[in-house]
């Protein structure tokens, strides 16, 4: 059995909110980031945290990530995001969800086999546009 249900790699505003929510829901979640102070600041809210540059398979294995762990890539940095995605593929991880910062990033992620891609700014923009259109139609 996998040690963690979900691993969140990259704990910015997106990743940390996601990880905390999962933790509170009782999901076994691992949070990873390169920024030691950021990780330290989350220590009270999330049980399993690690400070690591998780670009290679060896590090990912040491972190306890197995093919059954659902991995979420929370970083906007395209280079890091794609490198980790490649390593996760080599490790055989089945479910990899990713956050994307641009449409090119989205394209690259989907080429490399990310199973679910979210581009939060775009999706938030579209959602807000939807709200506005509704309001226009009523008014």
């Amino acid at each position, binding site marked *: 059995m996998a040690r963690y249900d979900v691993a969140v790699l990259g704990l910015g505003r997106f990743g940390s909110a996601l990880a905390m929510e999962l933790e509170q829901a009782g999901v076994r979640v691992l949070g*990873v980031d390169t920024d*030691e102070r950021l*990780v*330290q600041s*989350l*220590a009270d809210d999330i049980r399993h*945290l*690690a*400070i*690591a*540059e*998780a670009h*290679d398979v*060896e*590090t990912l294995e*040491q*972190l306890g990530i197995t093919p059954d762990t659902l991995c979420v890539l929370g970083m906007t940095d395209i280079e890091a995001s794609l490198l980790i995605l490649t390593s996760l593929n080599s490790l055989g991880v089945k479910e990899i969800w990713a956050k994307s910062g641009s449409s090119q990033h989205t394209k690259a992620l989907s080429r490399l086999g990310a199973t679910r891609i979210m581009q939060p700014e775009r999706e938030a923009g579209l959602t807000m546009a939807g709200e506005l259109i509704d309001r226009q139609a009523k008014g």
Partner: protein
Amino acid sequence: MDRGARTPAGRAIDLLLANPARSVLTGFAAFITLGTLLLRLPIAHEEGQSTDLITALFTATSATCVTGLVTVDTATHWSAFGEGVILALIQVGGFGVMSAASLLVLLLGRRLTGATSILSQAESRAVEHEEARFVLRGIARVTLLVQGVVAIALFLRFWLGYDMPVGQAAYHGFFHSLSAFNNAGFGLRADSITPWAQDPLINLPLMAAVMIGGIGFPVLWGLRRHLFRVGRWSVHMLVTVWVSVFLWVAGALAFAVFEWTNPKTLGALSPGGRVMASAFQSVVARTAGFNSVSIGDLHPETLLTLDALMFVGGGSAGTAGGLKVGTFALLGFVIWAELRGEPTVHAFHRRLPSATIRQALTVALLSVGGVATGTAGLLIATDAELDAVLFEAVSAFATVGMSTGLTPELGVGGQLIVIGLMFFGRLGPITLGAALALRNRPRRYEVPEERVLVG
């Protein structure tokens, strides 16, 4: 394949480095087994005696682990052949532990610092073998030189001063010199060297052999190169030498103060003899284990002082046992740095790596645990008082060999506990130190900090 790997020494070195803990432990276990079998032979004991398995095992372990605790009197129980076996085991044990530890220090040091990285693997192995042979030759030379000189000094004294026949004097000189240099503490009399307690010409050569054997090969090697240039000494040398000197002096002072008027020990000697016996007892507590006064008649506070000296033991990669002076001193430096609120631990203008400090803590606390467990076991197995039992356990664990007289009274269970203490006390700190130093699989991540309350 390079040339070195095909020689027996080369293969032994490869084996040692591949798994230090296992090869050292099995090597010693093999020699103890061989010694036990040889001591069981009918020609190993004097006529009219008989040797059961536990006695043979106990004696072989005590000799190989250079301890000196005995359940039967060495001179009256064992034949010339048996004593020869014991001497051979002491020599093998002393040389074995000194060379294994020295090689681990040398070769692990090279591997960990990556000093060989510019060489190809075959080249660096050849260099390692070359250096290992160099170290082994050095140890063999020191052993022969010191044992030879001390044996001759003792022989002359026994022959000229005590009217012993030439043959007996030579044998006494050889036996005691070998026993002293290897920090074994086996003697040829039930009362060790008590008859010669006041004779400086016996005491001083023995003390010199114990000190030189016990300070460790790395320090001897350094002293040879920079004897009078203290500025060039490594931190390990500085720490080992100064702390050893401090412990010798402090131990002798404490011994003299506690026992000065005890009529059964120092009180029976002349003032000069009291000083001599105090110094001797302080030196051999770390960890040779002769005695020139009766240990069983010492005050409890003296026993506790000796417990502490025995537990600290001698220098690393020497024939002495115990925790080792360097380990003990490291913990002292840690305490000093902590009390002063300093972020890192310094000694003699150098920063001590935190990995070393953690190794010292591990070895020290596991040793305390080992002695405590052994003491508890012996308390169950015997009717003796805590002070005698604790002394016995520390003496066995630090491979000292002094006893308040409890050893011959031990039953089979008690003897097995002491055998275990001697074996793991002799080999535990070395193999553990090497194994810990080798376990350097780098961790590719770190986890957040959280404090646990201390104190």
